[in-house]
């Protein structure tokens, strides 16, 4: 449920759905996100520049010369968007992952913490249907959940300075895929050769908030072949 709408400066509002981070809360966020995106596309509301869903909030940014926050708040409140049936545009995407030891940098650390062996960790990771909570920080980077409870672990105490593009990491109940080489503190368990983000393609980001991700294990040889395709 939408609990509260507040201003963020003079050209943003945040729609707060409560403190819980779970799929049900996030699905509510994405419902409002879809409604706003649809309203913008169909020109039912003007001046909206960006709409950014996260676990439990939707942030809407607007052009102050075009519209004011009270008009957007009024627009949201006057539409019972939860009842509007938008076309179900979420999809399931299969993402290849190679768990080779060259890529699974933190397997030892995870084995110690979870008391599971490498094989068990991999199978628990593979059996999960991951939900795309949000995309961002950098372009195309998905935040997926929920991980099997037995795999929960904290961030690294000292983040790595460089994590390769395509690395798959886990922290607490979340899983992410690094779409750019960047620093990071997640536990790295494998790497995908699959390109999730390409600005030059019409479909810039393969994943959208609300999608489902299922990982598929591939060998190092398949990883290399995939890369060269």
């Amino acid at each position, binding site marked *: 449920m939408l609990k509260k709408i507040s201003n963020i400066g003079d050209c943003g509002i945040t729609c707060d759905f409560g403190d819980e981070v779970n799929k049900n809360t996030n699905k509510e966020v994405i419902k409002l*996100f879809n409604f706003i995106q649809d309203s913008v596309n169909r020109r039912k509301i003007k001046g909206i520049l*960006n709409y950014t*869903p996260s676990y439990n909030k939707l942030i809407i*940014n607007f052009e102050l010369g075009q519209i004011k926050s009270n008009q957007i708040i009024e627009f949201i409140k006057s539409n019972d968007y939860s009842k509007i049936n938008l076309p179900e545009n979420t999809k399931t995407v299969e993402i290849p992952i190679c768990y080779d030891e060259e890529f699974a940098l933190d397997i030892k650390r995870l084995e110690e913490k979870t008391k599971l062996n490498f094989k068990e960790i991999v199978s628990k990771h593979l059996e999960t249907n991951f939900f795309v909570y949000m995309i961002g920080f*950098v372009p195309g980077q998905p935040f997926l959940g929920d991980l099997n409870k037995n795999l929960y672990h904290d961030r690294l105490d000292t983040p790595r300075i460089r994590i390769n593009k395509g690395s798959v990491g886990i922290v607490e109940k979340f899983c992410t895929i690094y779409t750019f080489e960047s620093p990071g503190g997640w536990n790295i368990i494998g790497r995908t050769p699959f390109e999730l*983000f390409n600005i*030059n393609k019409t479909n*810039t*980001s393969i994943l959208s908030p609300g999608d489902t991700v299922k990982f598929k294990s591939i060998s190092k040889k398949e990883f290399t072949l995939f890369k060269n395709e």
Partner: protein
Amino acid sequence: MNNYFKVLRPGINSTFQDLGRFGLQHLGIVASGSMDQLSFCNSNKLVGNKISEGALEFAYQGPLLEMNGENALVAVSGKVNFNLIKKNSEIIKGKSNESFQISNGDKIDILSTINSVYGYFSIFGGFKIEEVKGSVSTLVKAKIGPNNGNKLKIDDKIFFKKSHQTNKSKKIEFDFDKDNTIRVMQGLQVHYFSKKSQDDFFSKEYKVTKLTDRMGMRLEGVKLENIVNKNIKSEGITKGSIQVPGDGQPIILLSDHPTIGGYPKIANVITADYDKLVQKTPGTTIKFKLVNLAVAENAFQDYVRKF
């Protein structure tokens, strides 16, 4: 005949920018766009372009460019020390915020911004640069934008559209606001900070540090005490948000900010004061003044009148 500038020196951080790339933040793509939007628009007005036409933004030291092609009307906006070096080696001191003619073989040497950070270079008719998702803004970190998302490099060629113009030179009276007070509204997590820290933040001076770029401006001053939680659940970020990480020193998130983030935010810079803020050089001490939405919206009305 091809019309282009050859980059003889790229400058520190010279990128193409416009008003920004919108509607993609939910995919992790920040709007970017010119840091100082008024100076950017002025550069276009000076040469008779529509104000949203892409221009070349530079920071501190700008590029040295050699022109090849037909005569053209160009302008440098902001407060910039630059020279026009004629083909015969005659050096003419440049005047910012006043457009001028440039001919084949002339060079423009943008030496430095004066007591400010950003300046803009534009040409009548615009540069021949490729739009990416509806904008020519450059996000270097993710390699998004014209010039393959890169800053200018030495030997790059910047093509411009054929102008065939006879536009007259134009001048805009312009100076930066020297006042160092930045108006802000309360941030979403202002109550994460002790009462004393809130009072400190909205009254004491903070110094702009060298760790400042298009992504953010790190400040140094009285440490802010977080009494709730040093992290929040990651949430979408708005340009001008002031976040406070664990070390208690605020960071103002600027035009190339990450799209989501997990630090509490104490305040947000109002739209009317953003351009003024980004032009503050490292070492400058700034002060924040707390205002409400009505004041911010009125200030915006005054701000847009300058365009």
